[in-house]
């Protein structure tokens, strides 16, 4: 079992160690596993050579805003779908399913052309809207089961006490579902943080790029960067928030994934 674990995570550990090596050691042959001299030089270089701070901030902004929006809209839609059956909720269910099944790559032609027609190429707000729409079905899926698990009696009691249906929703049901909202939000945050396809399609100047798009451009060679150490430092810094999020929501994540919502 430990052999297996070693095989699986060695590449990641190797990347971390490489980020701590000076360049001279990265190019040494034979390669060294554990750095002979530890250095943070690569991390310093990273912020000097690349607009890494900008990438980072853009990613935080995009991921935070779109996951909050996703949660807000998904919570309302999920509640309506869990409690009322009308033409609207049925339609939302159908559109949501279609959106959920459709891989983004199949829509890049219209999305690129629409974004261009609206003058939204290279704009962070357009991509926030796109992410929100694209991850809404996931949010609705997750939250619906949360709402279904909250007994109707609580709402009924609130309404008997004089609350309107909507008040019952945001004063009584939402607080009850808070753990679910947070977990779903964090998961959306993580997925947006990773998203590459749309980011690389719509964002093309470094000042407007997210980490995914920015680092991919480094990989493809848009910047003159020849140091693996610096790249590994970038990889490490990009992965750290995800590992933190993962530790917090591990249980819900695993439950959600095995619940059938398996969208890579």
């Amino acid at each position: 079992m430990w052999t297996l674990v070693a095989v699986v995570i060695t590449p990641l550990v190797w990347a971390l160690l490489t980020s701590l090596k000076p360049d001279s050691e990265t190019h040494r042959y034979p390669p060294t596993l554990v750095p002979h001299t530890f250095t943070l030089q690569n991390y310093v270089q990273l912020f000097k050579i690349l607009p890494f701070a900008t990438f980072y901030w853009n990613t935080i902004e995009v991921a935070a805003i779109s996951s909050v929006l996703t949660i807000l809209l998904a919570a309302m839609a999920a509640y309506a779908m869990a409690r009322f059956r009308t033409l609207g909720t049925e339609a939302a269910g159908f559109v949501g399913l279609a959106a959920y099944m459709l891989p983004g790559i199949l829509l890049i032609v219209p999305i690129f052309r629409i974004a261009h027609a609206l003058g939204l190429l290279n704009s962070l707000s357009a991509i926030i809207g796109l992410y929100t729409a694209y991850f809404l079905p996931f949010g609705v899926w997750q939250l619906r089961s949360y709402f279904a698990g909250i007994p109707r009696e609580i709402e009924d009691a609130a309404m008997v006490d004089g609350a309107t249906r909507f008040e019952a929703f945001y004063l009584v049901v939402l607080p009850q579902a808070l753990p679910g909202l947070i977990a779903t939000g964090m998961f959306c945050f993580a997925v947006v943080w990773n998203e590459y396809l749309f980011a690389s399609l719509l964002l093309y100047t470094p000042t407007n790029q997210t980490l995914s798009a920015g680092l991919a451009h480094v990989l493809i060679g848009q910047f003159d960067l020849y140091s693996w150490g610096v790249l590994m430092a970038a990889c490490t810094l990009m992965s750290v928030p995800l590992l933190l999020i993962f530790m917090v929501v591990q249980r819900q994540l695993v439950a959600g994934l095995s619940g059938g919502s398996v969208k890579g």
Partner: protein
Amino acid sequence: MKEVIGPPAGEPDVIPQELLGKRVIDYHPSHWRTGAFGMRYPRLGRHLSDKQLGLLMVAPALTLMLFYVLYPLWIVLSSSFQDFSTLTGPGRWVGLENYRWLIDGQQFLPALGRSVYYTVTNVVLQTLLGLLIALLLNLSLPGRNIARGAILFPFIVPGVVAAIIWGYLFDDLTGVVDYVLLSAHIVKEPLGWLTSPNTAMNTVIAISVWKYEPLMIILFLARLQTVPVEMLEAARVDGANHLQVLGHMILPWMLPVMLIAAMLRTIFSFNEFEMPYLLTRGGPLDSTLVLPVLIRQTLIGSSLNPGRASAISAIMISILVVFGVIYMLIYRRTEGSVEE
């Protein structure tokens, strides 16, 4: 929350005859409510029936999805019958011209073949490996939970990061994989994993398996944990050995989940863009040019042709629909046995 049924404080104690049996909300005179920070808030949704409220609550989500998903879906289908002189300019109708290019051209059919190879290999490897690893992680070994957590790492790491790291490990000059194989005398010269047309495809598949395997393991482990233990005990008491228990009881138990998971992974792998594109961008010599990468290349890569890119997308959408329906059918049939 008080549970008194009747008018709120401050209201007359006697409920008017004509209002008996109606909800408090129906005759509550106040349009305001005192809430957090002792402030007064408007009573939202006071005039709405449940039906109207439901509609209002799904409306924002529905609008956003219609605009970003369903409308583009319509555009992509209609664009596939058009020819565009520029990347962003208007198109003119050309009927099946783009589809004819797909069949006659030198790019689409080979890419389709690569996609099929990529998908089948990926799914078979992921399913079998996933089963083995899940069985291994299901044994009661010390440190099992840590191992289960660690095994998920490849899935958590962003695709871009995975591509950069593996690009480094498989690098021709500084790559560690080549170094290890060379010094163990398994190979005589660097293999050029991602730079040789002979090996690139399989290398990309291996990396993709590494990246997405955790999803399979999670699904399989969840299912393994519901195996009826008494049955296994009974079989052992009756003298069945480990292999017999595995073959006759555990495997049949796992089969529905394996089928569903394999279907999901098929749909996903066939449409997977990120890893093939980031690792090799379709090269070397088009050896890893799968359909998703071809779509992007046709749109904003070597040729700028939205019509043809749409035609490829449209074909992939129809394949997706077919597989989606098959998936639904399998899911319905196995639902009874998989429901957790």
